[in-house]
C-alpha cells in the first residue's frame, strides 16, 4: 500500500501559523507542541531589490497525517486550515511527481 505525505509549496507560506494551531487543537497537545511547526528565515537582502523572506513548515513526530479525519472524508486539519493553501495531502509517489520541475517545494513523509 502506498504511503501518504504532505507536499508544501513554501514559496507561498506566509508564516500565519494556522497549521500549527489547527494541529494543536485537533489533538489537544500541550501549549507550543504541534505536528507542524513553522520556521522563519530572513528577511535578507540578497540582491538589488531582491529579498529572501521565508517561512518553512516542518512536520514533527506528532503528525499522524490526521488518519482519523482522512478516513471520515476530511482533509488533514493543517491542509484545510492553511490560509495560503500551500499544503497538499496524497500518496508520496504522486506528490513526488508533482514536485518535479517546481521550485521551493518540500515533501514530508510520515
Amino acid at each position: 500500500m502506498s504511503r501518504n505525505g504532505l507536499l508544501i509549496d513554501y514559496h507561498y507560506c506566509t508564516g500565519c501559523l494556522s497549521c500549527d494551531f489547527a494541529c494543536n487543537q485537533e489533538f489537544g497537545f500541550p501549549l507550543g507542541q504541534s505536528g507542524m511547526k513553522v520556521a522563519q528565515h530572513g528577511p535578507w537582502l540578497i540582491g538589488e531589490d531582491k529579498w529572501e523572506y521565508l517561512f518553512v513548515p516542518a512536520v514533527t513526530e506528532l503528525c499522524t497525517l490526521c488518519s482519523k479525519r482522512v478516513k471520515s472524508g476530511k482533509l488533514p486539519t493543517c491542509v484545510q486550515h492553511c490560509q495560503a493553501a500551500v499544503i497538499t495531502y496524497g500518496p508520496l509517489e504522486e506528490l513526488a511527481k508533482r514536485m518535479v520541475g517546481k521550485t521551493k517545494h518540500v515533501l514530508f513523509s510520515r
Partner: protein
Amino acid sequence: MEYEDAFEEELPWIYEKKPWRWEEDGLTVTRGSSFTGPGCHNGCGVLLYTDKDNKLVKVEGDPLNNYNEGRLCIRCLALKDVVNHPDRLHYPLKRAGARGENKWERISWDEAVETIAAKFNKIKAEHGAEAVVFAQGTGRDIAPYIMRLAFSFGSPNYVCYGLAGNACMIPRLSVQMATLACITMPDYSQYFPDRYDDEEYSVPECVVIWGTNPLASNSDGNFGHWTVDAMKRGSRLVVIDPRLTWLAAKADLWLQVRPGTDAALALGMINIIIQENLFDREFVELWSYGFDALAERAAEYPVEKVSAITWVPQEKIVQAARLYAQSKPAMIHWGLAVDMTKESVPITHGINALMTITGNLDVPGGNVITELPCGVAGYYGWGFDLINREQFEKRIGMGKYPMIRYGIPLASPDEMVEAILTDKPYPIRAMWIQANNPIACMGADPKRTYESLSKLEFVVVVDLFHTPTTVAFADIVLPAAAFPERNGIRAVFYYAQSMNQVTQIGETKGDAEICRLVGKALNPDAWPFESEEEIWDSLAQGSGLTFKELQEHGQMIHPNIYRKYAEGRLRMEDDQPGFNTPTGRVEMYSTRMEEFGLDPLPYYEEPPTGPVSTPELMGEYPLILTTGGREQAFFHSEHRQVASLRATHPLPEVQIHPETAKGHGIEAGDWVWIENPLGRCRQKASVTNVVPPWLVHADHGWWFPEEEAAEPHLFGVFTSNVNQLIPYNCGRSGFGNSYKSAVCRVYKVKEGEM
C-alpha cells in the same frame, strides 16, 4: 495562470449534505458565520463543535463557505480559549468601591437595566438627552444596535470614542460616498461560489497593496490571504508600505513610502498615467467628471517632486504607475494607513481617481462596487429615523467639521473629548461604552482620554472581559457574549449567513440583545421587538427570509453584477445609468466637497510633524514613528489573555533598524523608551531590517491582563501605550489623524526604571 490549490483535490466532503447542525463522534457541529467579538472584521464560515454539556471544544473553518473556503486564522482556531477563559465576565456588575478600586458586586440583569435607565433618564431630564454619549470602538457587531439605542433615546452623540479623526475606514467610506456615492472593495472573486474558476471572473493582472498588510490585518471585511490566491494565479504585486511586509518582499515593486505622503504618490502616479496617455479614455469620457481639472492638479506633481516628498525613487514611481495602468484588470487593495494621516481625505480622493482614470471600477478583478448584501440591512445604520432634527443638530463636532455635518451620523471624537473637559457647547454627563477600550487601544492621547472619562458622573461598559476601561471608569459593567454565545446575522459585503448560538457562558448576552433590553426600558415604542430574534427578522426582511429560514439556508451569496453604473443599478431615484452623484458621474472634481468648503480635488499636505513640517524637532527626535501594524494573534487590544496566542508575540515590540539600534546602543530584546514632546512609553526592541534606518514601528493596543487591575496600575495600560505620543489632531474635513507619521527618539530603559 493555472494554480493547483490544495483544496481542489477531489475528496468526498462529508460536509456537503449536512444541515446547519449535525452530530459527529459524540459532538454537535454547528455551521454558521462569525463576527467579532472576539475577532476581526471578516466573516469567515465556521464549524463550531460542542460537547454534551454545550461547551465549545473545537472550531474549524467551513469548507463549504466560499468566503474562507475552510481556511481559518489562529484567532478563530483559538476561539474556544477566549470563550471559555476563566477571566470572562459572567454577570452584570455594579461598582462596590471607589472608581478604580476594582471592587464589584454581582447584580441581576433586571437591576442593571433599571439602574441604567433611571440614571440616563435623570440626566436627560436635567441636561437633555445629548448629555448621554453612546460610544463604540471599531466596528464589532454593534454599530446598528448602539446607533438605534442612542437615537431612540434622543441623543445625537453616537461616537467612536477615542479614535481621533475617526481615522479608520470612515475617511475612505465618506470620500467614496461623496465622489462615487457607493463603496468599492477589491474583487478577489468573492461573489462567485466557484471563486477564481468562474468564467465571468478575471484574475487581476496587477494588485496594488496600498497601506495594508492584509495577511495579518484581514481588514475591511476581506480575507487577507485572497492576495496570496491572486499571486499564485499570476497577479503582479505592487506594495506601498514603509515596512517590508512578507508581501513587500515578494512584490514585483515595493515602494517604501515615507508615512503620510501617499496623496503626493497618488497624484504623481495620476500625472504619469495622463502624461503617458495610459488612461482609459472611454471610461473617463462616459462616466467621470472633472478629468481636465484633475490633470491640471496632477501636473503640479511631477515625478521629481513626488520622489522628493515620498522618498520613493523616481523610477519606481514611474514603473508602478505604468504597471497599474497597463494591467487589465488591475486592482487597488487599500488599507488603514490611507486613513491615518491628518489630511487623509485627499489621499482617498487621489486613489479613487486612479481607479477611475484606469477604468477599473466595477469590472471583474478590479474594484467592485458593493451593495446591501442579499438585502440584509444593519451594518449601514439602523434607527436614524428615530431622532428628530432639533436633537440631531446638537451632534458634537457638527458645527466645526463639514464631513461630520454632511457625512455619516457620528459625532466627532476629538470635539467630544473637548466638550467633556470644558462643558462646551453643553455638559456631557454619562457614557455608554460598548465594545470599546479607548485608553488601551486606538484612543489618541490616552491620558487626556482618561481625564475626560474620569469626569463623567455615570459610565456603563459592555465587554467580554474586564479591561483598563471597565476598571477605571465603569459604574456598571455588562457581560457581552462572544459570537458562539448568541444568534445573529453576518452580512459582510459579499454574503449573508446566520451566526448561531452554541454555548452559554454565565449570564452573558449578545450586544444587540443588551441594546434591546436597555432600549426597551428607555423608549419601548422604538424597540417593539419582543426577542432578539425579532431584531434579526427585521434586519433580514430585505432577503425575503426570516432569521430561522436564513439559519436553514446557510450561506447566501449576494448576486453581484458588474458595471452597475451602466445597468442603472446605482441611481435609486431615476434608475438611469450613471452614478448617484450630483453630476451622475464619478466626481474626480467633487462638487460635494466643494459645497462642504473643501478642496474639490486631491492635494498633498505634509503630516503635522516630520522633517518638512517641524525640522526644528528632528535634532532631538530624529526618527519617524509609525504605529498600529497588526499581528496575527491579536485583534486590536483583544486576545492578550489567551496563552497560545500570546506565546506568538508575548510583549509589545518596537521595530528598530540594526544601524539605528547600534547607534543607540540598543540590542534585540532590550526595553526601550519611545519618546516625543507629548509623552513616552516603553516596548521591547525588535532589531530588524523590516524598517528603514529612519523609521521605527511600535505595536498598539497593549495592556497586561496578568498585572494589577486596580488604580493606578490599571493592567499596565500606560506602560507601553504608544498613543501617548499621538495627539488628537484631525484634518479639516473632521476625518484623519496622524497615527502613522509622528516623530520620536528611542533610548534604553535604565535599571530601576521598570
